[in-house]
């Protein structure tokens, strides 16, 4: 067990190391920090002195060590545009993105579980067939088109829903502003959440249906049915538990995918989150902000993947935790 933890932990550290090298390489090659600071008027000789003072002429390894040292202390540089530490800028936008992911996750869980289970119990009913047809079509629609379609129908034609922004937000704690506590904020959250969830829904409906049909064939379900237990209790309590293992793994990997697609969703809905911030930073060639985003997002990926693996190892007793080659 301990060996499994340690190996997984080592892998996470190696991956973070690679990400930091990539981040540093971006910083090293993209733009000239000196020009951002002093502009064009300073002479070449003065530049050279400044370069030496800032350590820009040091060997790659020395610069990288300094970069890592600062990063470990939570200093990833200062944004050229916002004139503030990049981590502060990113963490100010993080709540918006997290709320979006939370909303989408809620929709995915609340819709895909009942629909998937029903489609497994009654595969021949028209509802199940519609659900499966919907999931095939759903996989083929790019996320941004779902968003555009929703905006066109509900905002432009019907005028029921706001088409951009977060609406009214409230200060909760520090720089953490949430839209979840106001009616306006919740209304703004609906369309973006549906858009983001449209990516995962077809996948999860299919997955839960497939796993559930397999479990329904097993002896213990047949026995419970024969014993006369309430079918609902069997389906949602006994059978569902055993379909959740693969769902956890796939779900964990998909958290990362969702994070990537928040960039698309945020662009469509002008949602002021991290992804939107990143694209703005790219257009302004705000190197420190780009690098910080890469590192923060990389860290989120690594942490979630490691946690999912560990949880999977704990939940599934058949995983060979101490195995030499998993």
């Amino acid at each position: 067990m301990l060996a499994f933890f340690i190996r997984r932990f080592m892998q996470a550290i190696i991956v973070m190391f690679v990400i930091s090298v990539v981040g540093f390489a971006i910083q090293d090659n993209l733009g000239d920090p000196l020009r951002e600071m002093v502009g064009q008027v300073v002479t070449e000789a003065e530049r050279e002195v400044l370069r030496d003072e800032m350590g820009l002429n040091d060997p790659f390894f020395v610069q990288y060590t300094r970069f890592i040292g600062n990063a470990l202390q939570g200093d990833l540089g200062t944004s050229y545009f916002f004139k503030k530490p990049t981590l502060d800028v990113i963490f100010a936008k993080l709540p918006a993105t997290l709320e979006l992911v939370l909303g989408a996750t809620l929709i995915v869980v609340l819709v895909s579980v009942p629909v998937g289970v029903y489609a497994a119990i009654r595969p021949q009913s028209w509802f199940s067939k519609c659900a499966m047809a919907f999931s095939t079509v759903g996989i083929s629609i790019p996320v941004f088109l779902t968003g555009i379609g929703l905006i066109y129908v509900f905002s432009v034609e019907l005028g029921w829903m706001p088409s951009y922004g977060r609406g009214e937000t409230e200060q909760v704690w520090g720089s953490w502003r949430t839209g979840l506590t106001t009616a306006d904020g919740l209304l703004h959250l609906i369309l973006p959440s549906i858009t983001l969830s449209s990516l995962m829904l077809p996948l999860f409906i299919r997955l839960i249906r497939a796993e559930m049909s397999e479990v329904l064939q097993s002896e213990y379900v047949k026995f419970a049915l024969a014993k006369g237990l309430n079918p609902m209790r069997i389906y949602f309590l006994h059978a569902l538990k055993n379909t959740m293992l693969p769902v956890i793994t796939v779900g964990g990997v998909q958290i990362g995918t969702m994070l990537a697609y928040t960039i698309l969703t945020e662009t469509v809905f002008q949602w002021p989150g991290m992804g939107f911030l990143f694209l703005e930073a790219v257009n302004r060639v705000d190197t420190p902000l780009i690098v910080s985003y890469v590192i923060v997002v990389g860290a989120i990926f690594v942490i979630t993947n490691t946690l999912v693996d560990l949880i999977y190892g704990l939940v599934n007793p058949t995983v060979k935790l101490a195995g030499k080659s998993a």
Partner: protein
Amino acid sequence: MSHASESVAIAQSVDAAPSRWEKFKESHYWHSFKKDRVAQISFTVFVLFVLAALFSPLLAPTDPYDLASIDIMDSEIPPSWSEEGEDRFWLGTDAQGRDLWSTILYGTRLSLIIGVCAVLLQAFIGIVLGLTAGYAGGRVDSFIMRCADIQLSFSTMMVAIIFLAVFQAAFGSELYQRLALIMLIMVIGIAEWPQYARTIRASVLAEKKKEYVDAARVMGFGSGRIMFRHILPNTLSPILVISTVQVANAIITEASLSFLGLGMPVSQPSLGSLIASGFEFIFSGSWWITVIPGIALITLVLVMNLLGDWLRDVLNPKLYKG
């Protein structure tokens, strides 16, 4: 007597060896295709798309890349069946006055080129690494597959967005727009190789134990020859199945990247960048610039996914479920 007639029958069948086409007509692929209405329709639509892409310069009434033929006064004309539409442009025009029908034809061509080339690159890298991992085994195997796992844990979209964004910031948008086609193919191609590597490796592990591989080894053939000439042909059906779906995914990825402004430029639009350029005008009521290319994109991807489903059912390969 019976023995003689049998040998005659064999001799006849050797004489009239069935052509490939006849063999194909007898096979169960063709039978299953004849029964499956969905597969037939998707195949027809897909072929139409491919033909439209191949012959777009002939089919398109105007050349959307030719700035001289575009008149800005023609911009945002609705499709010809609506009240304000004009007969010259049956699907209307976009914000720059380009004929939408021609632009969609050229855009489909670009989307398909990027999708197919990216998947060829994926397949090449994935096949080489997957074969090596499966055949060599041991440390090489675990190293390659660990890399594949790690790469898969980062979503393709994220990797592609970050790389293209950094390249765009580094090159400046002008140079980037000229390189966009190659960059898209490279990034989508490199980001998805683990899909192929995993599939191939799983089949190789199954094939490696078979006797013909032992026989080849005993005859003294080198590893490279055994891998590519003997094992690879036997792993082709899973490759075929994932390829259809991968091309569909690559087209979606390309469209999404172009939508973000990281893909094809507006002057040379793929379906994704065409949709992106129309998105600004959807609020002012010019729905067709977004909706019509959107429908084209969804149809193209949908028929490819349906074909992929059908192929998977027919070939029924043991796909690696990871």
